[in-house]
């Protein structure tokens, strides 16, 4: 059956696509193609330009240079509407749904259909589509009441409803449980067998190998080549992705006089809608060690760190033990300011660097000053200290910036992160929390960050490191705590644990819950 629908020309072909944002070149002469009845993975690290490239196919951005061919004909995709016309459907990483609309309303949004607007009729057709592919969805439910995976279902049905022939999925599995991922892959395979061309953006190698027919690799915005999945392996793909072969050579020192520094007991918290995000979290972070935190994205890692930093309302106990005196301080219910006033030197590198850790429109000096601006009795600011510190950071961390007066939003991701981590470390923390500190960073910048975290550990700081790359977590941490759906599913010794073991823990609770549901 697949032979029948396969045509001679590729379903979509890109030729020399280039896109620049100001001084940054996001895509540099990228060329690739997909055939009908084929799944192509686009593989690349965070920030390698995958999403930008796909946004140009779906009409969100317009390329500065290059051509796009659909079924062999050159096309100009100026808007998403044009993309639909060429039967291109994109499922974005951040769902493009209107919260106050129902699923059905979202699905028919933007359709150019003649005839009467009859929501019941549409609902019926959506139900049929759901049955055909085995989706479980109530079309009349409002999006704001839905779970992440339901929202993704809405997005996929939206594309199918438009009769998309070319389907692009941007990191679709980042937010899914393994079961949901498997289900999605089944559906994608069924679509491929229907003759659809599917492009899936990902940075997870095992997904690439299990799902796709061919892999195109992007490296720092440049096209690094395409290989058939059958003829490659993880090592080769990694090499293409990072440009050169890397062995994760992170030096890990032994843990020396480790003492409990931060004790978390029975911590729970809810999101604004009242759903429990964290459930009964209990652990201890010790001085002089790196505690890694692993888990599927959105399992509660962000909330946990924010809770400790005093940014979430929580139940349970957060106890800090003063390094010198051994006195215990309760941090729960305290604001960041009150925590600082207790003499607790808690540093926090948040996941959202420009949205939380820094202010994009302010310059380096002011951003470095964010931590320390309130020091001293004077009502006025003293910028001289932070100016010195900024100069020091630029020198020591090799931060590339036109000047100290440049707004940080104009720096590259790696340099932004160096400023942020440098600032947090300059506060001489006793507890350092870092959420995805190397996300979107190149190898060099990543290693700088690893080095800094290790230095802190050796200085006796309790380091809490939330990561997504299990190899890094295993190489860097001393212990790894795994979170699954807001619960701790296990704490393992990073020196002896295996990737598989952690992978299993990451999904454990979810499984138990689902089996329980089936029994009823």
């Amino acid at each position: 059956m697949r032979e029948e629908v396969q045509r001679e020309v590729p379903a979509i072909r890109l030729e020399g696509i280039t896109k620049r944002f100001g001084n940054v070149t996001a895509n540099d002469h990228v060329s690739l193609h997909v055939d009908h009845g084929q799944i192509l993975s686009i593989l690349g690290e965070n920030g390698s330009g995958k999403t930008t490239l796909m946004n140009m196919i779906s009409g969100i951005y317009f390329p500065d240079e290059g051509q796009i061919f659909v079924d062999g004909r050159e096309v100009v995709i100026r808007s998403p509407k044009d993309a639909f016309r060429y039967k291109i459907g994109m499922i974005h990483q951040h769902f493009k749904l209107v919260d106050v609309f129902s699923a059905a309303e979202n699905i028919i949004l933007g359709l150019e259909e003649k005839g009467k607007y009859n929501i019941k009729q549409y609902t019926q057709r959506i139900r049929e589509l759901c049955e055909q592919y085995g989706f479980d969805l109530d079309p009349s439910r409002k999006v704001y009441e839905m779970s992440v995976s339901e929202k993704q279902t809405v997005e996929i049905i939206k594309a199918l409803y438009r009769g998309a022939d070319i389907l692009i999925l941007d990191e679709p599995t980042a937010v899914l449980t393994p079961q949901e991922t498997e289900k999605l892959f089944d559906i994608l395979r069924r679509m491929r067998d229907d003759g659809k061309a599917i492009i899936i953006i990902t940075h997870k190698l095992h997904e690439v190998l299990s799902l796709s027919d061919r892999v195109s690799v992007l490296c720092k915005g440049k096209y690094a080549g395409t290989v058939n999945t059958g003829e490659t392996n993880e090592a080769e793909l990694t090499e293409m992705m990072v440009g050169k072969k890397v062995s994760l050579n992170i030096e890990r020192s032994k843990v020396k006089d480790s003492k409990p520094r931060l004790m978390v007991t029975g911590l729970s918290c809810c999101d604004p809608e009242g759903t429990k995000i964290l459930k009964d979290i209990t652990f201890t972070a010790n001085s002089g060690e790196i505690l890694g935190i692993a888990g599927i994205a959105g399992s509660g890692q962000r909330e946990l760190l924010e809770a400790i930093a005093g940014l979430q309302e929580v139940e349970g106990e957060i106890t800090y033990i003063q390094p010198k005196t051994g006195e215990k301080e309760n941090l729960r219910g305290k604001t960041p300011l009150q925590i600082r006033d207790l003499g607790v030197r808690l540093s926090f590198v948040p996941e959202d660097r420009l949205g939380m850790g820094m202010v994009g429109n302010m310059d380096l000096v002011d951003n470095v000053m964010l931590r320390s601006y309130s020091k001293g009795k004077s009502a006025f600011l003293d910028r001289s200290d932070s100016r010195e510190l900024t100069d020091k950071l630029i020198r020591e961390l090799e931060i590339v910036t036109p000047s100290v007066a440049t707004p940080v939003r104009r720096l590259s991701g790696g340099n932004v992160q160096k400023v942020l981590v440098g600032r947090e470390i300059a506060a001489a923390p006793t507890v350092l929390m870092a959420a995805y500190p190397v996300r979107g960073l190149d190898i060099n910048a990543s290693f700088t960050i690893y080095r800094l975290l290790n230095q802190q550990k050796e200085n006796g700081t309790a380091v809490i490191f939330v990561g997504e790359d299990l190899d890094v977590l295993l190489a860097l941490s001393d212990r790894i705590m795994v979170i699954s759906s807001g619960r701790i599913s296990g704490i393992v010794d990073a020196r002896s644990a295996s990737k598989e073991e952690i992978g299993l823990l990451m999904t454990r609770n979810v499984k138990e819950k689902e089996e329980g549901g089936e029994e009823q």
Partner: protein
Amino acid sequence: MWADFLQRAIMQGIPLLYGSTGEIMTEKSGNLNLGIPGIMYVGGIGGVIGAFLYEQNTAVLNPFLAVFLPLMCSILASLLMGLIYCFLTVSLRANQNVTGLALTTFGVGIGNFFGGSLAKLAGSDVPSINLTATSNYFRQSLPFAKDLGWFGQIFLSHGFLTYLAIAIALGCSFVLTKTRVGLYLRAVGENPATADAAGISVGTYKYLATCIGSVIAGLGGLSYVMDYANGVWSNDGFGDRGWLAIALVIFAVWRPNLSILGSILFGGLYIIHNYIPDLDVSGQELFKMIPYLVTIVFLVVTSIGRKREAQPPASLGLPYFREER
């Protein structure tokens, strides 16, 4: 007395209804147009200019033209105002609050300027603008309204602009909730990035909704001059009704059909002081405060309640630029 009160409440309410319906359509596209008060002035003076020139240049008024010309002038004038707002905020991505306030300054200025200087500019020697003749055509009510007692007085004694206002409000409600265009428009106001990704032209919808909204609001100014003020233009006579119309949008939780009832309520609150015995002028001024107080209470209650359907459109007041990142 009740019939009299209700009749006058409706008369007071109709300009507000036009204004709020227009502003609801505009806000549903994500544009917070604070220029509505100015636009209503311009809509009013547009009609006045049309009627004045027609009355001055014709000996015998043709009933159709006497209504049609002012109506067209009013629509055209407020359409231009809507276009200025759209060009600045949508095409040039200017700040909506600043643009809106400038538009109000501009619009009120135009209204008062032409209101005060129209006669001189047209080279006429009339002392003030009095368009009773035209106004009478606008105020033509059903002939048998007087024979139907209180029912006739409350519901049938008004000019056609009153019924048009209600029809437009109901029509807008229908469009917003029951049609594809309405769905797309709401999507633009809630989440323009999503609407854009779905192939809806955000700019077009913003332009259309805002311009149509301006025209509807402008008719409010016209209905005030022709229906309420008997065709007599007095500078600043329209007062703060434009802001009251914006308050009404909140009170009607962005639903034009609720706005009909709201406008009568606000109209009633606006004149209730006339119906309270032994109230001196200062007391009247306090009573005029009530619609605003009610709106604030309502605003606070809805924001504390956080009911999703009672919130302003999510992207209200924010500009949209596709390639921003």
